[in-house]
């Protein structure tokens, strides 16, 4: 173990220079770890929003409904979605199955009609797992929104929750009534009178102006749907298994269906992920370059300063490859110290930043800001360490080569 010992002593020899290099390494580590933590927070938040926003972990859909525009029509539905949901609920991997109907129609207040995009959900099961009723509180703050509540779970109740924009253009408030009109699968026009149970602010003007939500029973009555459902949102006991479980659940559900894990459908999530990887990837590259140059410079200087010493080691019988290894060890020691110090500083900074409760601006396409909360992700900390270490080992290679290639006689003559 002569090499690690020599390496450690050498690193400790030029304390000031080692400290300066460590500073660069620590900065690199902290930047990587904090950026990684921030990315992890963002991804998790977006994933959560997509899953709880209605997709679930796995979506079961009629074959081809993603490609066609027929998704909004019950002609292209799962004919007995309820029975399918009931049988899937028995699967041990499944936590819950939430059938949904997506539909379109007109909402009328007697004098004025507005086109809407409707979602019909299981009024009892849905709010237990999904974010569908989370924005009622925000809706309650809107004009006419006072007293907003979720849909009644009584199968006979005919109620609606409206986007605040839609409520405004129809001029209704909580407790008011509307007529919803849509078509049955055989093309007939049908209408149902509903009471306004609540308003919600969905955070996006386009959604607020168009969307409404009713119970499956209400939608069935309106569209004569029977047990037909547009799709099933499946929640799994182990969400990370979504990709593997999808095909199995599709087979289990029967023919004519396809299954998609949530991330295939969450396009916003994927776009942001790509964007972040591009931005932070570029940052990481610049960082890697800085670290590479700083360490290579430090190690090269230390090689040039002890040419005679290295020549002596070679004279005594140390083979060139051991000098290459010596420099790798010196890099490794620098990296370890840098990462260890960086870890401590990152944890302190994370604690401080999170304690500040900084408000972050609303992400594009949404109307709500959020509080900065950098997650503790062990994988990110490990990744920052490994990434940094890899860069350092590469940067130690050139000084190592220089050391391994010295000519002994010249090195010995060096003062």
């Amino acid at each position, binding site marked *: *173990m*002569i090499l690690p*010992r*020599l390496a450690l*002593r*050498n690193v*400790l*020899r030029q304390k000031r220079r080692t400290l300066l290099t460590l500073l660069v390494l620590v900065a690199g580590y902290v930047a990587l770890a904090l950026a990684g933590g921030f990315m992890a927070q963002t991804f998790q938040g977006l994933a959560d929003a997509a899953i709880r926003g209605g997709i679930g972990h796995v979506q079961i859909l009629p074959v081809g409904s993603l490609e066609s525009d027929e998704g909004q029509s019950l002609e292209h539905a799962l004919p007995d979605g309820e029975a399918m949901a009931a049988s899937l609920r028995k699967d041990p991997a499944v936590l819950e199955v939430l059938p949904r109907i997506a539909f379109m129609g007109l909402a009328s207040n007697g004098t004025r009609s507005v086109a809407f995009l409707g979602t019909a959900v299981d009024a009892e099961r849905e709010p237990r797992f999904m974010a569908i009723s989370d924005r009622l509180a925000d809706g309650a703050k809107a004009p006419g929104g006072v007293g907003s509540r979720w849909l009644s779970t009584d199968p006979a109740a005919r109620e609606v929750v409206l986007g605040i924009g839609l409520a405004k253009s129809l001029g209704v408030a909580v407790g008011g009534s509307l007529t919803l009109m849509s078509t049955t699968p055989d093309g007939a026009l049908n209408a149902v009178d509903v009471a306004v149970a609540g308003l919600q602010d969905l955070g996006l003007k386009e959604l607020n102006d168009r969307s409404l939500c009713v119970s499956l029973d209400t939608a069935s009555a309106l569209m004569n749907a029977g047990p037909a459902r547009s799709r099933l949102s499946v929640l799994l006991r182990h969400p990370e298994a979504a990709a593997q479980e999808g095909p199995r659940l599709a087979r289990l559900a029967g023919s004519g269906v396809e299954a998609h894990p949530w991330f295939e459908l969450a396009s916003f999530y994927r776009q942001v992920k790509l964007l972040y990887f591009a931005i932070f990837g570029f940052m990481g590259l610049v960082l890697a370059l800085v670290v590479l140059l700083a360490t290579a410079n430090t190690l090269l200087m230390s090689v040039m300063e002890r040419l*005679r*010493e290295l020549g*002596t*080691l*070679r*004279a*005594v*019988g*140390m*083979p*060139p490859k*051991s000098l290459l290894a010596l420099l790798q060890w010196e890099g490794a020691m620098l990296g370890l110290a840098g990462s260890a110090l960086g870890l401590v500083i990152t944890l302190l900074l994370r604690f401080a930043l999170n304690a500040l409760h900084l408000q972050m601006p609303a992400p594009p396409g949404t109307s709500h800001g959020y509080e900065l909360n950098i997650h503790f992700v062990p994988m990110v900390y490990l990744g920052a360490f490994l990434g940094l270490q890899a860069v350092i080992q590469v940067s130690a290679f050139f000084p190592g080569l220089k050391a391994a290639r010295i000519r*002994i*006689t010249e090195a*010995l003559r060096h003062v």
Partner: protein
Amino acid sequence: MLNLRHITRAYELGGERAGVFDISLHVPSGTLAVLAGPSGSGKTTLLQVAGLLDTAEVGEVVLEGRVVSTLPERERCKVRLHRLGFVFQTFNLVPVLSALENVMLPLQLQGVAERPARSRAQGILERVGLGDRLQHRPGQLSGGQQQRTAIARALVSDPILVLADEPTANLDHAHGGPLMALMAELSRERGVSFLAASHDPTVISRADVVFRLNDGRLE
């Protein structure tokens, strides 16, 4: 034991040829041989060729009957590590290692375990009179002590030949004499040969054999 056969190592600099030319010599085992000659006569050049630190253009280095000068560098490393020892004018100890660690170094490079390496190194440091300086770094030792440490390092792996380039040149007279006496003793005690380059009369007076170099040729 050590045979140099027709060694030529020439430096061409501005039309002038320097170095060593057609040197043949024999150092028997257990002898203290001195390479004498004025400055620039080629002592260092010859020692470096003999010690496999440099390669001659012509001639061969024969150690224990084996031609070692034509070996690839990997093998030359092994010969230096196991059969040769080096002592330099400027001591050349590793500054970040203690006297004991410096002496342990060749053994550790050979793969000897920490414990036996330590006790062998300690033994030889005691033999050269540094039993009470084991943990001192080179910077905390006098020149004479440093050179004795270097001799201990050269001898610890039981080489057959130690090459010493002006071992006393950086020591004052009071230290040079005793150091040479020590080398003479060790050479007899251990059957090690020394080939020392020097123009110091005290060194030359200790020699069993003296080779005189002048302008790169043996006289």
